[in-house]
């Protein structure tokens, strides 16, 4: 009895540790293979999620990244409570779990030798929602780009505005857009990379107004939710609706770039602005 249950738990544990199930084609991939392939399915090219720091490692030349504005975190100004508890408890637990203090990591570094400033959103932090602190970091990074004449790249991954901060979150849409609008004054390139998913208020603000809008394959990019639209119009929507391929087809995305090619793609397009 003891012997039997021990092996099953050992087996279960090893299976979970060894395999990753692809969310799109459902095939089982060796975890080592999955990670070597940058969390992209070798079978169907589904781009799984990665953390902000993993993306930063992929993007910047070794030892060039310097994090900036990392001393900003949320505050519960509306005294918000839902069925699961207070906003304060929720973001404090999230900070402990993720080790980041807001839904975006900002900093500067070199991409194949080209200096740039980035803001990389992290979906693990309250669904990458846009709160006051998130907006502040994206704005401060834009201002840093302005002051130092550096190209600005924002990687968005977000469920939209942060409901726990109510109207203050809505104002972040205007605040961030004002930040990137100012870059026009000095002809500073602003590149938006829309990662799965980029929805709601984020898709209706800074993420959609890049000089270049880039995306990874198969990313969900949507202003209104699929269910809301289906309820409004009372019919089923096409399968590829609101994917990056759909948006490129309709003229809102310049290019879809595989994760493994993103660094070279970005350094290549940035090189046009420096000639």
């Amino acid at each position, binding site marked *: 009895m003891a012997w039997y249950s021990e092996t099953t738990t050992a087996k279960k544990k090893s299976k979970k540790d060894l395999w990753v199930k692809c969310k799109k084609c459902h095939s089982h991939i060796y975890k080592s293979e999955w990670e070597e392939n940058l969390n992209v399915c070798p079978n169907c090219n589904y781009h799984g999620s990665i953390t902000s720091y993993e993306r930063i490692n992929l993007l910047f030349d070794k030892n060039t990244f310097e994090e900036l504005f*990392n*001393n*900003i*975190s*949320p*505050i519960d*100004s*509306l005294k*918000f409570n*839902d*069925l699961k508890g207070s906003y304060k408890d929720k973001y404090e637990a999230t*900070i*402990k779990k993720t080790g980041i*203090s*807001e839904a975006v990591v900002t900093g500067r570094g070199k991409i194949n030798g080209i200096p740039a400033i980035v803001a990389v959103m992290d979906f693990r932090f309250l669904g990458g929602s846009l*709160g*006051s*602190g998130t*907006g*502040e970091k994206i*704005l401060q990074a834009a201002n840093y780009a302005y002051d130092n004449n550096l190209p600005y790249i924002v990687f968005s991954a977000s469920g939209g*505005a942060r*409901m726990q*901060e*109510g*109207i*203050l979150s*809505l*104002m*972040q*849409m*205007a*605040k961030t*857009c*004002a*930040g*990137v*609008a*100012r870059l*026009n004054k000095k002809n500073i390139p602003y590149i938006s990379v829309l990662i799965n998913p980029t929805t709601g*208020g984020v*898709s*209706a*603000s*800074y*993420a*959609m*107004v890049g000089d270049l809008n880039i995306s990874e394959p198969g990313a969900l990019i*949507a*202003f*209104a939710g699929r269910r*809301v*639209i289906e309820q*409004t*119009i009372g019919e089923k929507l096409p399968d590829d*609706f*609101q994917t990056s391929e759909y948006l490129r087809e*309709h*003229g*809102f995305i310049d290019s879809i770039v595989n994760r493994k090619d993103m660094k070279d793609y970005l350094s290549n397009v940035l090189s046009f602005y420096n000639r």
Partner: protein
Amino acid sequence: MNILAKERKVRELESKIDELGNKEVTNKLKLEIENYKIEAMTNLTSWDRVLLARHQLRPTAKEYIEYICDDFVELHGDRLFRDDKSIIGGIGTINGNIVTIIAQQKGKNLDENLKRNFAMPHPEGYRKALRLMKQAEKFRRPIITLIDTPGAYPGLEAEERGQGEAIARNLLEMSNLTVPTIAVIIGEGGSGGALALGVTNKMLMLENSIYSILSPEGYATILWKDVSLANEAAEVMKLTSYDLEDFEIIDRIIKEPLGGAHFNKTKTFQNTKQAILEELYQLRKLTGEELRDSRMEKYRKFGFFQRFNYDNL
């Protein structure tokens, strides 16, 4: 008893007066009604204001324009796809000031609402607005927007034509304008769909209008999985003009008559016109550069956050 029930009671009493002939009795009743109104309609809840903001009889944008402007010429179309009738725009004169006016238009009945799409714009509505704003800038005209929408329309075609892009573009371009811009929320300020006309030097709000990230119904569904708690959601959301004044998100509240704008439309329009003219007078003193920079500065300050110390992790 919410504000609509109280209003029904007032109307009931008023209709009884009309049936009476005796002057002494009617005067006494009229006084009683006035006293009841003062007692029942002064301390409104947030939910009361939601109901007033959406009231069937609440004046719509066109009525404001008719009263406020000496003359008005409506201009149509985004030059790209079609004319979105949920947004009206044009050139007008307010006490001799030539301005561009852009407004979200609700209908007064079902037919009108179908034509106006319940004031829920498609991307082409926002693009029409942007076209007219750029034109205003070319001719150095101040821009007045009147906001009254449940939100941007969530539909297949709206997504297909880039609802997100249209809103985002307006946020970016409005923050960059070099002419005076004033927004007035006259009814519902529904999320991004309202903000897309609301990145302005001055933000004014009718006393009983609302401005929120989501409808109270949507908020209650997310918060408590129960749409019937919308009235409680309205309280916690901070969506009234007084809440937004506390947050310094709006610059000014325009007072409404007792019971709401529809009880005395002329008074409401007068108050609105005066507020717009006063703000315009101040903004006209600034240069284009100053207008743009001070507007950007205002938006850069929005939001509350705290300094974080990683040692506490």
